[in-house]
């Protein structure tokens, strides 16, 4: 083994750069160990004790950066040391250039991008409304990712937007696809003739990816933020979005997704639908069924696809019933692998809409379901960290996300919970959503692999993947890795939920 080091006298790099470069050089081929570390007395002792001593080490002081590499081959050591220096230099250069391209206010941003017609705003809520107003006054559409914007401000902004013929997507709008461009948490989907308006972010992701995976495409996907369909906001942007799609030449079919709007809002939406000449599929999660409207996001997406292809949307339900029979057979196989006493579903979701959809599906068969975000008659969990019988958890709720990244980005909390639930002798099924696309974790399957592998020794792990092969994470590869870990991967959240219910039904867990 060869160990060599460099001492960069008085070299100051921020900790994140040091970590990144350290990680990069440690991962280089042939490297046994490597580090970038300040030359303090303590650190030098540790280097010596770890077999990373080199002749010049003693010359380093508190203010000097040590780069040390250990490898079998001397040539590798030299190359890696050079690479480390190059990486550090380029980190410095990036810092110098970043400032030139980093405007600090809206005017500066417009100067650097004069043709912009949309502002995506993601700042602390108490400042966001003012910036959104400025953007609208400058003639820009607005996507307002920020939350903690007051209801009054939301109403004012949306009225202003409506007056000016501008979209106000949000607040708390995390997903949109405009002119084929995924914004914030969104997926790479095919372009096509189905336009979507959604007051449910992961709902939009689910339907848009299902549409794309079924061979059709999305013209525009407009998010409105969850509060838009409440009485106070009156569905302003939901209706403006619907009207915009009705007038859009590229859109042939319109798909609406939300939780049930307030009755007055629903009436206004229905009035606009009646005047729309294009077919409209309405997916109102949890609304009383009229027999024709879709019952799940999957069904809604497939109905929109059928309409886009000139087929009868009523055939979708028949096909899904045939698929349900297949799901029943899968449930039988899975139930047979479970032990005595295992009877409950523990659903751990990163997407709020999936949490709601699961509860709606479960409520048809399961008597008692608990959730930290109850829907469809579910009980409120007393302690979000402790499951009770059948439990559906939205890990995107505030109690899990204050001061930490969203569970679509950071899997650590969910992974801990998966292991904990798998240790509970009453757990039969762990149900997961895996959401791909921009903004989500770059490799969810890798994050989940180890815990799923451990969990499947004791429980069935069922998941759905929301995404396409065009997403940075590549849906197909994610599916392969999750299957290798032992998870059952279903084509939609609804299918995964049905399978989970099917399993516990056979285990006597419905009561």
């Amino acid at each position, binding site marked *: 083994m060869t160990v060599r080091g460099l001492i960069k006298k008085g070299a*100051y*790099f*921020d*900790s*994140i750069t*040091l*970590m990144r470069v*350290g990680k990069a050089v*440690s991962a280089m081929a042939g490297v046994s*160990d490597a*580090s*970038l*570390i*300040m030359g*303090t*007395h*303590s*650190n030098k*002792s*540790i*280097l010596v*004790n*770890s*077999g*990373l001593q080199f002749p010049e080490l003693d010359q380093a*002081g*508190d*203010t000097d950066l040590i780069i040390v590499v250990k490898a079998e081959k001397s040539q590798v050591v030299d190359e890696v040391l050079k690479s480390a220096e190059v990486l550090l230099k380029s980190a410095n250069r990036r*810092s*110098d250039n*970043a*400032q030139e391209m*980093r405007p*600090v206010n809206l005017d500066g941003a417009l100067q650097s991008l004069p043709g912009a017609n949309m502002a995506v705003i993601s700042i602390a809520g108490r400042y966001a409304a003012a910036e959104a107003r400025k953007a609208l006054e400058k003639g820009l559409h607005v996507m307002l990712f920020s939350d903690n914007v007051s209801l009054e401000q939301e109403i004012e902004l949306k009225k202003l937007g409506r007056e000016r013929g501008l979209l106000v997507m949000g607040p708390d709008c995390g997903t949109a696809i405009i002119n084929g461009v995924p914004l914030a948490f969104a997926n790479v989907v095919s372009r096509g003739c189905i336009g979507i308006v959604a007051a449910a972010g992961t709902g939009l992701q689910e339907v848009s990816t299902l549409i794309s995976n079924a061979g059709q495409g999305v013209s525009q996907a407009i998010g409105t933020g969850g509060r838009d369909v409440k009485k106070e906001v009156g569905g302003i942007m939901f209706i403006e979005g619907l009207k915009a799609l009705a007038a859009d030449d590229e859109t042939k079919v319109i798909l609406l997704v939300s939780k049930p709007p307030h009755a007055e809002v629903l009436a206004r939406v229905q009035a606009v639908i009646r005047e729309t000449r294009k077919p409209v599929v309405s997916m109102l999660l949890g609304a009383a069924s009229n027999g024709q409207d879709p019952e799940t996001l999957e069904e809604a997406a497939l109905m929109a696809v059928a309409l886009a292809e000139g087929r009868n949307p009523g055939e979708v339900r028949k096909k899904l019933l045939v698929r349900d029979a297949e799901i029943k057979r899968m449930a039988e196989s899975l139930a047979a692998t479970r032990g005595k006493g295992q009877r409950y579903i523990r659903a751990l979701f990163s997407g709020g809409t999936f949490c709601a959809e699961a509860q709606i599906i479960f409520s048809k068969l399961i008597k008692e379901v608990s959730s930290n975000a109850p829907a469809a008659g579910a009980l409120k969990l007393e302690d979000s960290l402790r499951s009770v019988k059948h439990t559906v958890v939205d890990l995107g709720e505030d109690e899990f996300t*204050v*001061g*930490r990244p969203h569970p679509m980005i950071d899997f*650590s*909390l969910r992974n801990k919970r998966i292991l904990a639930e798998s240790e509970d002798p009453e757990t039969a099924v762990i149900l997961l959503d895996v959401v791909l696309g921009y903004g989500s974790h770059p490799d969810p399957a890798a994050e989940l692999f180890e815990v799923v592998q451990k969990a499947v020794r004791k429980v069935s792990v069922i998941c759905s993947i929301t995404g396409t092969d065009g997403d940075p994470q590549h849906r197909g590869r994610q599916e392969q890795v999750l299957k290798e870990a032992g998870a059952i991967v279903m084509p939609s959240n609804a299918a995964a939920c049905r399978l989970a219910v099917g399993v516990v039904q056979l285990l006597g867990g419905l009561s």
Partner: protein
Amino acid sequence: MRLLSIGDRIENGGYDLHSRFDRVVNFTDGRRLVSLVESSIGAGPFHLVVEDHVPRQASRLTVDSGVYRTDQEVLEASSAKRFNSLIPFGSACPDGLALRLDEMEKRLVEAAGAKSLAFLLDESREKSFRSSLEHGFVECIKQGTKELFQGERESGVRLLKGCGFGLTPSGDDYLSGVLLALRAWQSWTDAVSETDIQQLYDTALGEQLISNAFLQMAFEGRAMESVRSLAQAVFFEGEKTIPAAVGKLCSLGESSGADWGTGFLMALRNGMDGKPAASS
């Protein structure tokens, strides 16, 4: 260029460029540090918060009776707020502290980065440290904290000082947290004396001015904005504000904030020599 905030420990003098980062430019007179920072970094006792980007081309800063200038321009200070960095420990009550520390620990363990010192609070985090160097670092930190809280202060501090990764090594950030906690204890009990704190501080100081600046802040019972909001939550506001404050703290540096928080928490819990924290 306009200043938004002026730290309350910035002294008159001439300061030369010490180091430059994306959002921070540090200047020194050889002993003290003054930093020009962007608003995302926040106010601090030695910080001048600028409205725009930090002037990365500046190589000298002069402070003279309320006039702040670089070698390129005068910084407009007329509307800048003065940042009060002192934490009023005297008006904080240690009652209920144990509950708030439990909440802080829970949030810190959740939010802290993988390579931070939060392994001192949750052993399972040790598995994030894989190489022999990283194991050596973990052992050094564990031994240092053991000695520190078992009365072997000087040897404990010497083990922790300068130990770890990052521009400000984790051990230094940890000791800054410890110092601030001891200042709090000093205001509530006779068990912690000025001599104890002074000795710990003197031993912890090294040659790296940035680490020293954080140590000095803590020694004086002061904190920058992001750290202060945690102290505020723990001493004055209650459990509800702790999660957000811990989140803000953990966003400091790669692990600096979490390391600081771990030291602060452990010292609040343990006092100087393994004494239990005040009961709730």
